[in-house]
C-alpha cells in the first residue's frame, strides 16, 4: 500500500461499469465521495429553495387587491341603483354615506351624478364608486370600488345591484391554473412558498452546506488524516440527510406547509387538521438534525484524534477551527430541537397539549425551545463560512493571517455566546428584565465577530492580493457580512427592535448574514477548492463576472428591503400598500439578477467538469496540507502520512511546497504585457 511505484488512482477514478460505480458511490465510506454527494445534493436543494424564493419575489411585484364589481341589472332609477351599502368580499357591509362617497357616471357625455340624486341609469352603462377626492373608494384598506355594469340580458324587471369579487395582482394561483382564486387562497399558496423557501434553505442548505460538503472533504485532508474518525457513521449521516430530505420533499409536493420554517405553535399544531404534511415536515427537520449531530460529532473526534504528527492545535488551519467550533454547537444544540420537534409531533399525533394554548400548553415555551437550538445554529451556519474566509483570504493574499489565535478563539467564543442569546427572538413575549439581559448578551456576539473582521482586514493590508474568484467572493463576504452584522445591532437594541421586529428589516438583515455571509463564503470555498476536488480549473473570467452579477443582484434584492422594513413593511405578507410597490419591484429585479449570476456559475462549473484545464497540485500557492495531495486526491489522500513542519499560514518564512508560480491564473493581458516588455 505504500511506495511511489505503487500508483493510486484518484478517488474519482472509475471503478468499472456504470452500475459498479453507482454501487461504489452508494456504499462508499470515503469522506471525499460523501462530501461530493453532499455538495451536489446541497446545490440541488439550493436551486429548489431559490426557485421558491423567486416565486415569492414575483408574487410581490404587484400588491394583491380585491376588486368588487357591482353589476346593475335592468334599467334603474338612481335612488334604487344608488346603493346605500356595499358588501365587501369578506362579507362586511359598508354604509355609503351621502357626501362622503360619490357615484359617478362614466358615460360618453361625462355626466356626473351625485349619490342621492334621482337619475335613470340605462342598461349597459358603467358607473364608478369614488370617494370625495375622486379616487377609487377604499374601505378598510380594500379597494371596493369597481365598475357598475348594467346588464340587460339577465335583467330582472325590477332591477337591483349584485356584487362580485375579482382579485388582481395575484400570480402564484394563476401559475397553478387557478384563475379565480380568492385572496385567502392566494395567500395560502404564498405562505406555502415562503415556508418552502425557508425550510429548504435552512435545514437542507445552509446548516449542512459547508461542514457536510467542503468540511467533509477537506477537514481530514487538512489534518493530514486518511479519513474522518467514523467513516461509516459519515455515510449514515449522508443517508439520514437523504431520508430527511425525502420527508421534506414529500410534504412539499403534497401542497406543502404554511407554518413558516420556524413551525411556531399554534400554526403548526392547528393548521392542516388531520393531515400529515406538517408532521412530515417537522419529522424531516428532526431527522435532518440527526444527520447534523453525527457530522458534528465525527468532526470533533477527528480533530481531537487524527491530526498528523507535528500538528498541534495552533497549527491547524482556521477552517478546521471553525468547523470544530460549529461541530460543538451542532452536538450541543441540535438535540434540543430534536426533543422540541418530537414533542410537536406527539402533540399532533396523540392530540396532547404541550405547546398548543387551546390544549393548555404554552406556545412561548415552544419558541424558547426552538430558539435555544435555532439561535446557536445560525452560528453553525456562519462559523464554517468564516473559516473558509480565513483560509482563502490568507492564501490569495499570500500573507500570514493576522491574529491567528484571536480568530481561533473567537470561533469558540461565538460558539459559547451563541447559547445565551436565544431570547432576543422573543423580546415582546418576555419580562422587561429578561429582555434587557438578553439584549445585553446579544451585543456580546458583536465582539468576537468584529475581532474576526478586523483581523481579516489587517491580513489584507500589504498582502499581494490576487483578485481570483475566491478572493472576489471573500471581498464580497466582508462587505455583505459587515452590513449584515451591523444591522443586527439595531435589532438587538430593545427600543429599535420594537419598531423593526418582524419587518423586512429583519428579512434583509438575516439574508445579509446567511446568504451574504454563508453562501458567499461557500462560493469562495467552492472556487478555492474546486481544482482540488475535481482536478479541473474553472473559467476565471466568467466566474468573476458571475460573482459580480451575484454581488449586484444581492444588494439590489436585499438592500431595498432595509428601506421596506424601516418604513413598516411586515414580513410574510403577500400584499402591501401601494407605496411599497416600487421597492418591491426593485427587489424582485435583484432576485432575477441573482438567478442569472448563479446560472452562469452553474455553467462555469459544468464547463470545468467537462472541458476544464487540468488543475495543478497547488494552483493558489497554499501552505495547508490539502495542497500536498494530488488534484484530485488519491483514495487515501496522501501517499505517506504528511509531517507538519510549518504553520498553515507561514508565508513569511516558508516557500510553498510544490508551488509553481506558473500555476497562478495570470490574466491574459498581463501575460501579453510581460511578453511585450521582454521584447
Amino acid at each position, binding site marked *: 500500500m505504500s511506495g511511489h511505484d505503487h500508483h493510486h488512482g484518484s478517488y474519482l477514478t472509475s471503478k468499472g461499469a456504470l452500475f459498479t460505480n453507482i454501487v461504489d458511490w452508494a456504499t462508499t465510506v470515503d469522506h471525499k465521495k460523501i462530501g461530493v454527494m453532499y455538495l451536489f445534493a446541497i446545490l440541488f436543494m439550493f436551486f429548489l429553495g431559490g426557485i421558491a424564493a423567486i416565486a415569492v419575489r414575483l408574487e410581490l411585484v404587484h400588491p394583491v387587491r380585491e376588486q368588487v364589481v357591482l353589476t346593475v341589472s335592468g334599467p334603474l332609477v338612481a335612488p334604487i341603483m344608488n346603493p346605500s351599502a356595499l358588501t365587501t368580499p369578506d362579507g362586511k357591509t359598508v354604509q355609503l354615506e351621502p357626501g362622503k362617497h360619490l357615484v359617478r357616471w362614466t358615460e360618453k357625455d361625462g355626466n356626473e351624478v351625485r349619490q342621492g340624486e334621482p337619475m335613470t341609469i340605462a342598461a349597459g352603462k358603467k358607473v364608478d364608486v369614488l370617494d370625495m377626492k375622486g379616487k377609487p373608494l377604499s374601505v378598510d384598506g380594500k379597494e371596493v370600488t369597481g365598475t357598475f355594469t348594467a346588464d340587460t340580458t339577465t335583467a330582472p324587471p325590477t332591477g337591483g345591484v349584485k356584487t362580485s369579487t375579482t382579485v388582481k395582482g395575484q400570480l402564484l394561483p394563476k401559475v397553478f391554473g387557478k384563475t379565480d382564486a380568492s385572496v385567502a387562497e392566494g395567500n395560502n399558496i404564498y405562505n406555502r412558498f415562503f415556508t418552502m423557501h425557508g425550510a429548504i434553505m435552512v435545514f437542507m442548505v445552509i446548516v449542512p452546506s459547508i461542514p457536510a460538503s467542503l468540511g467533509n472533504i477537506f477537514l481530514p485532508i487538512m489534518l493530514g488524516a486518511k479519513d474522518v474518525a467514523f467513516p461509516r457513521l459519515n455515510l449514515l449521516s449522508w443517508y439520514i440527510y437523504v431520508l430527511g430530505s425525502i420527508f421534506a420533499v414529500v410534504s412539499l409536493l403534497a401542497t406543502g406547509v404554511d407554518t413558516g420554517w420556524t413551525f411556531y405553535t399554534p400554526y403548526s399544531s392547528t393548521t392542516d387538521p388531520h393531515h400529515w404534511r406538517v408532521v412530515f415536515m417537522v419529522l424531516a427537520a428532526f431527522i435532518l438534525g440527526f444527520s447534523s449531530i453525527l457530522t458534528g460529532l465525527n468532526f470533533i473526534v477527528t480533530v481531537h*484524534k487524527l491530526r498528523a504528527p507535528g500538528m498541534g492545535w495552533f497549527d491547524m488551519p482556521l477552517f478546521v477551527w471553525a468547523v470544530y467550533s460549529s461541530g460543538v454547537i451542532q452536538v450541543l444544540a441540535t438535540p*434540543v430541537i430534536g*426533543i422540541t420537534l418530537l414533542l410537536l409531533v406527539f*402533540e399532533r399525533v*396523540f392530540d*396532547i397539549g404541550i405547546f398548543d394554548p387551546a390544549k393548555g400548553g*404554552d406556545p412561548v415555551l415552544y419558541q424558547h425551545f426552538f430558539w435555544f437550538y435555532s439561535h446557536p445554529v445560525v452560528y453553525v451556519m456562519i462559523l464554517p463560512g468564516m473559516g473558509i474566509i480565513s483560509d482563502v483570504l490568507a492564501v490569495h493574499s499570500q500573507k500570514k493571517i493576522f491574529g491567528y489565535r484571536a480568530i481561533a478563539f473567537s470561533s469558540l467564543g461565538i460558539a459559547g455566546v451563541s447559547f445565551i442569546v436565544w431570547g432576543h427572538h422573543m423580546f415582546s413575549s418576555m419580562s422587561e428584565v429578561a429582555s434587557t439581559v438578553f439584549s445585553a448578551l446579544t451585543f456580546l456576539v458583536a465582539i468576537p465577530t468584529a475581532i474576526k473582521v478586523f483581523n481579516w482586514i489587517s491580513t489584507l493590508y500589504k498582502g499581494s492580493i490576487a483578485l481570483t474568484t475566491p478572493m472576489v467572493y471573500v471581498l464580497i463576504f466582508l462587505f455583505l457580512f459587515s452590513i449584515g452584522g451591523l444591522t443586527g445591532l439595531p435589532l438587538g437594541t430593545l427600543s429599535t427592535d420594537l419598531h423593526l421586529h418582524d419587518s423586512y428589516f429583519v428579512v434583509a438583515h438575516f439574508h445579509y448574514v446567511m446568504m451574504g455571509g454563508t453562501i458567499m463564503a461557500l462560493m469562495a470555498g467552492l472556487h478555492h477548492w474546486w481544482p482540488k476536488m475535481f482536478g479541473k480549473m474553472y473559467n476565471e473570467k466568467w466566474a468573476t463576472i458571475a460573482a459580480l452579477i451575484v454581488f449586484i443582484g444581492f444588494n439590489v434584492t436585499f438592500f431595498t428591503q432595509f428601506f421596506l422594513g424601516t418604513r413598516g413593511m411586515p414580513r410574510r405578507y403577500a400584499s402591501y400598500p401601494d407605496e411599497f410597490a416600487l421597492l418591491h419591484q426593485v427587489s424582485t429585479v435583484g432576485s432575477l439578477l441573482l438567478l442569472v449570476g448563479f446560472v452562469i456559475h452553474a455553467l462555469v462549473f459544468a464547463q470545468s467538469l467537462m472541458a476544464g484545464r487540468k488543475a495543478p497540485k497547488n494552483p493558489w500557492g497554499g501552505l495547508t496540507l490539502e495542497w500536498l495531495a494530488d488534484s484530485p486526491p488519491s483514495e487515501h489522500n496522501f501517499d505517506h502520512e504528511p509531517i507538519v513542519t510549518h504553520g498553515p499560514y507561514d508565508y513569511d518564512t516558508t516557500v510553498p511546497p510544490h508551488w509553481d508560480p506558473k500555476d497562478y491564473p495570470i490574466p491574459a493581458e498581463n501575460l501579453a504585457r510581460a511578453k511585450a516588455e521582454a521584447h
Partner: protein
Amino acid sequence: MTTLDPHSHAGTGSAARWMKYVHGHHWRTQTEEFDGCKLGFWLFLTTEVLLFGGIFCAYAIFRTLYPQAWAEGSHALNWKIGAFNTAVLLISSYTMAASIYSIQTNQQKRAQMNLIVTFICGLLFVGIKFALEYVPKWSGYFLVWDPALHHHTASIVEGKTALFGLFQFVDGYGGKRPGALFDHPFAVDPHVPLWWAVYYCGTAIHAAHVLIGMALIARVYFKSRKGDYGPTYYAGVEITGLYWHLVDLIWIFLFPLLYLVH
C-alpha cells in the same frame, strides 16, 4: 465504529477473533481508535442528556406554573411500581458493568451471563412499565392497590375485574384514544392533562431508549458468543455499557420527579 479486516476470518489458528482484530485503516493504533470511539460516544451521550433536558425543562416550567396539577398528577401514579422498576434498572446497570469487567478479564461465559441478565432486566422494566402502568390507564383496569383507584372510588365498577381480581375496572378511564386519555374525567385541575403529556412523553421516550439499549445488548451478546470481544478489544461492550448507564441515569431523574415529588 470499527472495521474488521476481512482476512481475519481466513485465519486457521485457534486464536479467538478478538485477538485478530485489526483496527480501521485510518487510525494509527488500536488504542487511539478505542479512545476515539469513547470520545465520540461521550459526545453522543451529551446529545442524549440534552434531548431529555427538553423534557425536564418542560417539567420544571409547567410544575412552577401549575403546582396543583403536578401534585394531583403525581398522586395518581403508583410509586411502588416506579421504585421496583428503579431497582430493576440499578441491578441491570451492575450486571452491565460486571460484563465489561468480565470481558476485560477474559471470563467469556460470565460476561455473557451478565449480558443476559441485563437484557432480562431491560425486558422486565419495559414489561412492567407497559403492563402495569400504561395499559391500566388506557384500558381502565387498574391494579387493586393502585392509588389512582382510591382517588376515584366513586367510579369503581364493583365486580368488574380482570386476572383473578388483580385488576379493578374504573369507569370513564379506558377505551379512549390516547389523546383523550390525557384529559380523563377525574382531573380536578384543568392543567392535569399537561402533567400527563409530560409523563407520557418522558417515560415513553425513555422506554424507547431502553428498547434500543436492549437491541445493543443483544447485538453485543451474539458478537460475544462468536468471540469478538476480549481483554484487548471490547469497544462494543464498553460503549453499550455507556449507553445503558445513561438510560439508567435518566430514569434515576425521572423516577423521583414523576413519582415521589408531589
